[in-house]
């Protein structure tokens, strides 16, 4: 629906930008393992051509059986890396547990379940030694585990020579033991199936459980984790225990499968596992990585070593190749983690070309309805220096004035001459557009937060802060980024603009400079309490006003300098059309006028240079990159202008403050009982001018919910 609406806009078709795609891809966490994933697939395809019968399910299954034990060891390495440490003793623990399992089966002749338990316990104890040294004594993981690697390896070699004969003579005829070695539930080798289950559990543990988060937190910043009250030492201890248990699981399956132990079992596995997990995208710096990344890396390393061996390539070449892989992976890891943010920042802003319609003349004393005058120059000032940037103003039935200010407040002025100032409510965020609903609750669009309501008693409550996600967008756009203005239809639905999904309140200038349809029109239905995006991809939608007849919504597009009408009732329901094509400035809020027409504020006045820059995206890109923000080209902001236009979109008259002294950057105006109240994004007051020849009993509230409604007549 959004796209068809958009075709209706004619010129404004969203252009594809490779740069934009790249910057959005780089922001994605899942993008990092994509490259190793394709390397893995590529390797598989490469070996399929080089080796006969490689691409067969029998080969795949037998390779899975060979792989699973290495998978366990790589997983153990991944866990220790994620905590910011390292466990180099994984290969030695694996070999030790392989020996232990054989010992328990062949010499101690324990029943199989006990063998499993005893082997895993052995792994836990060995890991516990590392954990004690690293977690409790705070020794350095790399050297500590390097030394435990040497000690364990020497111990295994000693034990091997001592028990070699015993192992050769004894044998077991336990079916359960054979099943561990060669069983295949559902055709999948048992060890691979177990690995898969462990991976799932490990994934849930790491990404969904409290302790998994603690592990990641310690890896990301040990100091911060300690300050947050995480028991760093205990967690580290148990990480190495976990690492030991995982290696033990690998050793157990290896023992059952091979039923032999020698001095080469697991030699160099720590190095391969390290290469694997770093290659998969588990960061050496800690705090980043998933079990799946570790497995992708492990599969790459395994496929490579296994394939090279089968192609008859000598072991030292493989060794050198893996060394180079590790060097490359470490280099890329370091550089990428350091520069990722910078790379995203450099590619984030992607200006597009926008050819604006010719700007109408605003020359003073001309016949044009836009002709400059000084009707706002002497506006009364309400709350001078008592409000900071009232983006929107509104009046209630008791004639009190409300302004939404920069500091997250709704300020209310009341009493005779509106001298009494009070903070009606503090919402936070940046409150922008406001409207009263039927029950006199003040509904406010809050940039950075969503849509909030305030009861007449001044109590605020959340209405909505998210909408449906666009399924084909890389950016998760479900959160409301910058709710800007809102209006309420006769049926109570709240229509509001979310002017950008790529920027924030503080950076929304960039969205205008980018000139892409990043905004949207969203509707909240109080009957079902659901929020849905009505128009996706809209060029900076700003002011929203439900038409007098309640059948359409008027939308001001700040970056396109146009006003659109979107039908919500009647035969054209769902269609969007241009209402005002040519405006002399960037439109902001739209509000109803007493005579059935509309008021429109212009926040900036177009200049030929700015219009030219809109046709030159390269110029704007260079400007954003090379020039400090306060030197950027902008529309003329030193004017205040309010327009009046009728239902057909024809401009009728304009009110100007050509000096910008009282009211520059006007963003809002409300008519109330013969006066026009003015609010501006950068103003230090709320303005008021007397209107001539208007209905002096007309109020906004009555026009929506009371006697002045026009939609029933």
């Amino acid at each position: 629906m959004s796209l068809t609406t958009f075709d209706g806009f004619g010129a404004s078709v969203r252009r594809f930008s490779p740069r934009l795609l790249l910057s959005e891809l780089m922001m994605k966490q899942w993008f990092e393992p994509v490259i190793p994933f394709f390397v893995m697939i590529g390797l598989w395809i490469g070996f399929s051509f080089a080796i006969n019968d490689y691409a067969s399910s029998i080969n795949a299954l037998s390779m899975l059986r060979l792989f699973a034990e290495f998978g366990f060891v790589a997983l153990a390495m991944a866990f220790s890396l994620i905590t910011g440490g390292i466990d180099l003793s994984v290969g030695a623990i694996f070999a030790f547990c392989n020996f232990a399992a054989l010992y328990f089966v062949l010499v101690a002749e324990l029943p199989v379940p006990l063998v499993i338990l005893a082997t895993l316990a052995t792994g836990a104890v060995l890991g516990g030694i590392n954990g004690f040294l690293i977690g409790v004594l705070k020794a350095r993981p790399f050297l500590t585990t390097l030394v435990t690697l040497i000690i364990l390896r020497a111990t295994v070699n000693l034990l091997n020579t001592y028990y070699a004969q015993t192992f050769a003579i004894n044998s077991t005829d336990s079916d359960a033991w054979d099943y561990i070695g060669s069983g295949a539930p559902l055709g999948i080798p048992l060890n691979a199936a177990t690995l898969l289950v462990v991976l799932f559990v490990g994934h849930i543990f790491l990404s969904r459980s409290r302790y998994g988060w603690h592990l990641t937190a310690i890896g990301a910043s040990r100091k911060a984790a300690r300050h947050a009250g995480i028991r760093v030492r205990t967690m580290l201890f148990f990480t190495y225990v976990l690492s030991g248990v995982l290696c033990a699981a690998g050793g157990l399956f290896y023992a059952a499968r091979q039923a032999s132990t020698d001095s080469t079992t697991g030699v160099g596995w720590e190095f391969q596992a390290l290469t694997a997990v770093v290659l998969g995208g588990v960061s050496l710096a800690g705090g980043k990585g998933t079990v799946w990344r570790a497995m992708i890396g492990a599969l790459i390393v395994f496929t490579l070593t296994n394939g090279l061996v089968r192609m008859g390539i000598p072991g030292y070449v493989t060794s050198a190749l893996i060394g180079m892989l590790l060097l490359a992976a470490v280099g890329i890891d370091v550089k990428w983690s350091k520069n990722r943010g910078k790379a995203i920042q450099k590619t984030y802003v992607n200006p597009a070309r926008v050819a604006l319609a010719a700007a109408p003349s605003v020359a003073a004393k001309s016949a044009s309805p836009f002709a400059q005058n000084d009707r706002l120059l002497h506006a009364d000032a309400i709350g001078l220096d008592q409000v900071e940037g009232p983006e929107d103003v509104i009046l209630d039935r008791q004639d009190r004035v409300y302004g939404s200010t920069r500091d997250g407040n709704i300020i209310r002025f009341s009493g005779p001459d509106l001298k009494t100032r009070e903070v009606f409510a503090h919402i936070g965020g940046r409150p922008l557009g406001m409207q009263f609903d039927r029950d006199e609750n003040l509904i406010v669009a809050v940039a950075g937060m969503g849509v909030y309501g305030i009861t007449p008693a001044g109590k605020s409550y959340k209405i909505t802060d998210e909408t449906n996600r666009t399924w084909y967008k890389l950016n998760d756009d479900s959160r409301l980024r910058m709710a800007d203005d809102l209006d309420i239809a006769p049926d109570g639905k709240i229509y509001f603009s979310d002017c950008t999904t790529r920027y924030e309140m503080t950076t929304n200038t960039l969205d205008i400079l980018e000139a892409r349809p990043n905004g949207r029109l969203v509707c909240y239905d109080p009957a079902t309490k659901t929020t849905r995006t009505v128009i996706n991809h809209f060029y900076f939608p700003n002011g929203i006003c439900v038409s007098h007849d309640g059948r359409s919504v008027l939308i001001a597009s700040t970056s396109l300098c146009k006003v659109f009408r979107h039908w919500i009732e009647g035969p054209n329901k769902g269609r969007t059309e241009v209402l005002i094509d040519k405006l002399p400035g960037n439109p902001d809020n739209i509000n109803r006028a007493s005579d059935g027409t509309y008021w429109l504020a212009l926040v900036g006045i177009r200049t030929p240079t700015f219009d030219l820059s809109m046709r030159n995206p390269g110029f704007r890109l260079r400007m954003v990159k090379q020039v400090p923000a306060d030197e950027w080209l902008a529309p003329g902001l030193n004017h205040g202008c309010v327009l009046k236009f009728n239902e057909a979109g024809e401009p009728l008259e304009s009110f100007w403050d050509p000096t910008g002294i009282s009211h520059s950057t006007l963003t809002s105006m409300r008519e109330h009982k013969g006066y026009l109240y003015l609010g501006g994004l950068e103003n230090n007051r709320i303005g008021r001018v007397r209107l001539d020849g208007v209905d002096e009993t007309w109020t906004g509230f009555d026009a929506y919910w009371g006697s002045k409604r026009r939609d029933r007549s």
Partner: protein
Amino acid sequence: MTIDAARGGASGALRRRGRALLASQEQIVLAITLSLIVIFSFALSGFATIDNFLNLLRSISILGILGLGLGMIVISRGIDLSEVAIMAGSWSIALIEMQNGMSVPLAIGVALLVALLIGCFNGFMVAFVEAPPLFVTLASAFVIYGAAFWFAPAWVVYAPKDSSVLTFLGAGRLFGVPMPILVFLFCALAMHLFMSQTSIGRFIYAQGDNPEAARLTGVALRPLMVLEYSIVALLAWVAGWVWVGTTGSMQMAIAQGTMIFDVILVVVLGGISLVGGRGSVFSVVVGCMLIGILLNAFTIMDVNSEVQNIVKGVVLLAAIVLDNFLHPRDEETARQGD
């Protein structure tokens, strides 16, 4: 706030007192070494002879030369796990070239060139790519092993028998003292002067103490790091020369073995802390003495090499834990990943 400061001050004073009580690690090691000499002299027959002492010193001189390089890099807060691989790789390539007819001096130059190239590469990876030195040198050790095997596909490459230039450093004697000892002493003296008398040597200490502060003071850290890793490679080359002279061959297997841990053991044991900036050439010398005596005693007692590994491992572990205890890492400033 004040309470914390007071507590910090108190514990700092305690630590200073502790350090004063414990003397320095070098002195402890020296004392242990001397007492071991006394014990072994009585316990082991054939230990306390001039021949055995010269033999002992000769056997540790290669370890000592390697230890000087590693000690310097550890003082600079780095580490080089590829030192033994550099030694083995560069010299096995040189020896195979000699077998293929290259003149001996030229081949020795080739070995030097290969070693320095690897050292520069390690330095580049650490200084400019900013990859952790542990991983860089671990990986490059494997690459060197594989690449050297590619050029010289043999576990043992033999040196030509008739070259006195090649074997003098390893097998020769000067005034009755085996040359390896003299080479070690010369290297130790040179390294001592370099580390204590030259500004570059002081910069290395400054870098090890606090790299960021050294950088802000104006020390060109990156070129300095490349230089450090090149010096390690240079010493590996010297050690290789002695090795070739002593054994008449070069064994590739040592690149994959546990020899590098002996070197680390020598360095850490002598009191060169892994936190960097602490220790001196003297630390390497006393560390070397202790390990030499242990190894010599093991040999005399005919201890299984696996048991030797276990004992050395446990001693190294103890040294690391002791180092950690003497130079505790500050949880607030400790960096990730070392």
